[in-house]
């Protein structure tokens, strides 16, 4: 008999045959599984009407948080067609008007209209508005390398857009210099053209509305990116060189126009801090919604009424005072890892808490500095029990760190440690403030979960702080009591005899979700509620199966049981 250790490695053909044979047996099991019939019957009964999945409530809450954060970050005027300078128009010679090779076949999308390309502006907007089904069509415009938009999804849209990473969509401009953009959303599994910073790329892309993932009227008319049909030659974004038009507003008139245009978006106590006139592209940092050579007034107001926002920049037309956009800027950066921690290192700002999440989520592959606390107690939920499988061990945050926004923990950011950076060792009853340099989209990431931040280096370490170990409520139950409370949840088949208590840990529900990906809630609990986690494993096959039971530390109630079985 051949032992596993000296079994010869299978050839590609043998491996493929084994995979296929396994799948055939899986098909047969599925065919005999009443679940299949139930699913098919439900689908037929509903006639295509989607049922509400269990995660919808969670998704709505998550979206609300995202939108609030995004809304605070930036608010822009509605997109209105801007003036299109003849000299800046898209050179039609580089944009084909007929798509040469759009495939048709087993696709859920109808055959696209390949005879017409709709330039961004009134033509594209009219086509989007006139679309009544998912038929694809071509639109053309310019993608700008300076469009580092961050997360600014349209607040009127529903969860599906955000779940698609809508803030990572395409902003298609009518000119190489900018102009009112058509926002095209995209699914995370699509690949838009890459545009270098400072460059403008003419593109023709295939889009459609009425996407199958859109479940209600809020998103039917949203254009969704399918793929890139063709691209032209990239060129530098033209600099603003126009001269001031005659009969422009003066500073006080501009301030009044800005205050009127911004309306309630500007706090009542807003006082003018500065007024600057000039070509939009020259005076508004990273601005691309308005043609770069259009003369505008940029009026900056300061306010103390809105925590989290210190200044408001309102942009109005230089001559007419037409309100164009409003942008806010965060106040002076707070200390991310305690009062002694630096706010800037090497000219780079240090992000903490939700700001750190936003910075990581919008960083592309640019390193960012994030600050917070490492907690010694975090190691409890990362047993070396096989969950960190050999091939992906480096991507398991258990081998990295969890960065908390406060020394008391809660809502941590998972960081992976691919390079084996030496991370401060933290005793179980301590928290250590740190600032870490991290990046996303690591070159070694193959899947589409590449937003996981990867530790590059430890930029700063502060003095450790003693913490009240786990902060368990005084009347909380003991681990042994939790184990007994979990006993009646050990409903596992004999074949998977998960009767060995491998790890018992205490954490918060927020910590549990961050560590295991399992969101748990229950009556009278919050993300900060403390729970015991009883982990059960089959000692003979530790890597194959593990189960856990979450017990409310305060009430002793078993809240949820789950399994890490793949």
């Amino acid at each position: 008999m051949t032992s596993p250790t000296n079994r010869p490695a299978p050839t590609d053909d043998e491996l493929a045959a084994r995979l296929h044979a396994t799948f055939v047996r899986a098909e047969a099991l599925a065919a005999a599984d009443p679940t299949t019939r139930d699913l098919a019957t439900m689908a037929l009964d509903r006639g295509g009407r989607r049922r509400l999945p269990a995660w919808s409530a969670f998704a709505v809450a998550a979206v609300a948080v995202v939108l609030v954060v995004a809304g605070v970050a930036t608010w822009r005027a509605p997109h209105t067609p801007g003036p299109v300078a003849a000299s800046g128009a898209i050179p039609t010679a580089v944009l084909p008007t007929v798509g040469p090779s759009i495939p048709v076949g087993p696709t859920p999308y109808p055959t696209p209209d390949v005879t017409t390309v709709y330039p961004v502006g009134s033509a594209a907007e009219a086509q989007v508005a006139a679309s009544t089904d998912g038929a694809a069509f071509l639109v053309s415009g310019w993608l700008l390398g300076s469009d580092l938009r961050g997360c600014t999804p349209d607040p009127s849209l529903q969860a599906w857009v955000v779940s698609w990473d809508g803030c990572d969509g395409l902003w298609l401009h009518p000119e190489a210099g900018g102009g009112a953009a058509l926002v095209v959303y995209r699914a995370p599994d699509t690949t838009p053209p890459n545009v270098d910073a400072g460059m403008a790329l003419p593109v023709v892309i295939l889009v459609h509305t009425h996407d199958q993932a859109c479940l209600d009227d809020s998103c039917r008319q949203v254009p969704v990116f399918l793929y890139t049909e063709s691209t032209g030659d990239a060129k530098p974004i033209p600099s603003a060189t126009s001269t001031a038009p005659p009969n422009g507003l003066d500073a006080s008139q501009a301030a009044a126009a800005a205050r009127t245009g911004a309306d309630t978006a500007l706090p009542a106590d807003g006082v003018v801090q500065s007024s600057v006139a000039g070509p939009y592209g020259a005076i508004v940092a990273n601005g691309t919604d308005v043609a770069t050579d259009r003369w505008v007034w940029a009026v900056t107001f300061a306010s103390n009424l809105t925590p989290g926002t210190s200044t408001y920049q309102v942009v109005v037309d230089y001559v007419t005072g037409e309100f164009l956009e409003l942008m806010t800027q965060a106040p002076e950066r707070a200390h991310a890892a305690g009062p002694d921690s630096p706010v800037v290192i090497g000219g780079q700002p240090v992000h903490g808490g939700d700001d750190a999440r936003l910075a990581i989520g919008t960083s592309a592959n640019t390193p960012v500095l994030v600050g917070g606390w490492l907690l010694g107690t975090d190691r409890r939920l990362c047993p070396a029990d096989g969950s960190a499988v050999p091939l992906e061990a480096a991507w398991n945050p258990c081998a990295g760190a969890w960065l908390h926004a406060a020394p008391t923990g809660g809502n941590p950011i998972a960081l992976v440690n691919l390079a084996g950076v030496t991370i401060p060792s933290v005793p179980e009853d301590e928290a250590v403030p740190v600032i870490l340099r991290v990046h996303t989209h690591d070159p070694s990431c193959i899947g589409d979960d590449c937003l996981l931040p990867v530790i590059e280096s430890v930029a700063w370490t502060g003095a450790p702080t003693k913490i009240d170990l786990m902060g368990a409520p005084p009347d909380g139950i003991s681990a042994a009591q939790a184990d007994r409370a979990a006993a009646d949840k050990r409903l596992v088949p004999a074949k998977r005899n998960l009767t060995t208590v491998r790890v018992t840990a205490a954490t918060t529900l927020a910590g549990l979700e961050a560590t295991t990906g399992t969101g748990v809630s229950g009556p009278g609990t919050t993300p900060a509620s403390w729970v015991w986690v009883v982990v059960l494993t089959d000692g003979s096959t530790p890597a194959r199966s593990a189960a856990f039971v979450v017990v409310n530390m305060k009430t002793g109630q078993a809240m949820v049981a789950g399994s890490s079985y793949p």
Partner: protein
Amino acid sequence: MKPSTATITTRFEGDGRVMTRDEAEAFGDRELVAVAPTLLATARYLSRSEADAADLVQATLEIALRRRSQLRDPARLRSWLLAIETREAFRLRRRLRALVSLDGSVLEVPAVGGPSDADLEVRMAVAKLPTRMRAAVVLHHMASLSVIETAEAMQVSENTVKTLLRLGLVRLREVLA
């Protein structure tokens, strides 16, 4: 040898229950429903849990039912459905969490009649692959889609699929050896 659609239909109907007349009428789109076992088997590889897999199959069938008029070549029904399922899996993956019911048990596989240990070994090995690599391996090597069909389903190029398949086999060989 991969079972034909007819074989799967028979198996599907032969799960111990006799279909009523109403049920039979409800199954008017027999060809579509007959692929449900394939969709469930695939979903179990693309998803992280039974609940996710069930959600994925149902969503796929509902989308297909709404858009069945867009299927131009009935002979490509299977690959068309798998393409919908794959795209839906990519979309759902980010928002699905490993939520389990408050009163649920830890059961994830049937105690009786579940996959064999050898099949579980394959399933576990495949589950360890990165998402896209796993999808390519499942669609091509397991569900027998061609490289072209797999590329269309994943909306990537054929070369990307070939690369993913090559790396996927390398990784599987390391795990299964």
